[in-house]
């Protein structure tokens, strides 16, 4: 188990790979030295924003690997990856039934011979970005849930979906290390209601799409 912290966008080795802000900054750096006053002002604002971003904090804690979660949730059963891309109409219907927005139309889903499903999903909450594995029975009931990676983000970046998205699907090893010796945090009870929302979304996805595959 490893827990690591880093100090925001500027220190992230992955900053920019998916971020509009990064592309803008790249563009700014290509401006020749003879700047107009307006461009100079814009550059100053961008620089200020990048300093602000340093105040952001993110932490990540990795739990089971996907392979370990698979073994725990569906045992030794062989699971086949099924390529599923939800249509816009399906996504709308799932949102209507579950009252939860569908953020990713491409599903990372595996089916066993017994028609059980293993789904690797991503949940985004107020401060947290979570990779989670759900197992469903052949009747679409939740068989088990394992959190795989739990990330927290603080500072102004929590409002920047692009910034948060860059960490999805990435392991804890991508976060810079500040306080490895401190493995636990205490503060107040954080509600897991976003997982409940995800369960509603996934069980509706099963009813509408997976059960017919």
């Amino acid at each position: 188990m490893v827990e690591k912290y880093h100090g925001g966008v500027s220190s992230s080795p992955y900053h920019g790979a998916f971020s509009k802000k990064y592309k803008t900054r790249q563009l700014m750096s290509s401006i020749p030295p003879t700047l107009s006053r307006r461009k100079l002002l814009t550059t100053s604002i961008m620089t200020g924003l990048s300093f602000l971003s340093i105040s952001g904090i993110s932490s990540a804690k990795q739990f089971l690997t996907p392979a370990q979660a698979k073994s725990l949730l569906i045992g030794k059963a062989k699971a086949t990856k099924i390529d599923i891309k939800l249509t816009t109409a399906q996504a709308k219907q799932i949102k209507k039934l579950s009252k939860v927005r569908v953020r990713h139309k491409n599903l990372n889903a595996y089916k066993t011979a017994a028609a059980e499903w293993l789904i690797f999903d991503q949940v985004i909450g107020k401060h947290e970005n979570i990779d989670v594995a759900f197992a469903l029975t052949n009747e679409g009931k939740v068989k088990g849930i394992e959190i795989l990676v739990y990330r927290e983000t603080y500072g102004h970046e929590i409002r920047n979906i692009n910034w948060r998205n860059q960490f999805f699907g990435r392991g804890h090893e991508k976060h810079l290390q500040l306080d490895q010796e401190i493995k636990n945090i205490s503060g107040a009870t954080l509600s897991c209601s976003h997982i409940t929302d995800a369960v509603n979304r996934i069980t509706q996805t099963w009813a509408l799409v997976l059960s017919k595959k």
Partner: protein
Amino acid sequence: MTATLTNLSRCKPLLGTYVSIDLSAELDFDELVRISSLGYEAITKVHNLMSYHQTDSQLSQINTKAHLAPILLHPHTEAVINFSLELAEKTNGIFDPCIALHLVKQGLLPDYNQVLTNHSHWENIHIYDHHITFSKPTHLDLGGIAKGYAVDQAKAVMVKEFIRSNITEPHITINAGGDLTETHWQNRLINIRHPRTGAPFKKIEMLNTALATSSYCYQEKGKRPIINPISREPLNLTRSISIFSPSCMISDALTKIYALAPDSTIHQEYQAHPVII
């Protein structure tokens, strides 16, 4: 058994929050998984008995029927209610597990169209021969204490299982949304969240095996889950209250007492250490 140290970290959504279990011992990985599953089963058992949100929990049964007839208590439920009553008596009602009405009003507990009464009070609760009765309709909510008890139970079950496997000093850490316990807590640092932003804020050394913290850092604006049982007004908590003690149940309960009465000395009776930030 393996000769090398094996580590396992798991996390599951339970008790309304995220519950992580970290184990380290000279055992196979699969054996650690099995033992951690026993820990999660123990937590699930407490969750199913004492959840206010589940209409089929024993707590919901008590709330709807205990004013009509005695109800036989599960030993876990009895232990938690007895400790709640002990604290209520020792604090002259500063700790009162019967303030559910005020949490329902704020939307912090579900409204099942239950008959909520202003007469709900800890002195209405009577336990005799493992049965509970209410002298008046009362709404018991064990949310301020059951999570800590669940963590203690999980730890006890896993320690017992490790001993069966000839591991006498396993490394166990359980963290249920900040209510946590560590077997090897000496010289360990812990991060306390900022009481307003929730970001990791202050590093302090563990002072005992169990720790719980109360603050409003995750609360929606306007929602205040700690109620003053005397005035029946929600507490406007701006600080973070952490309690180190020998058990998570003690820590969990004492955070509410110190939020309401920072000058209390009750920690001395339970070998507890309050840290207020």
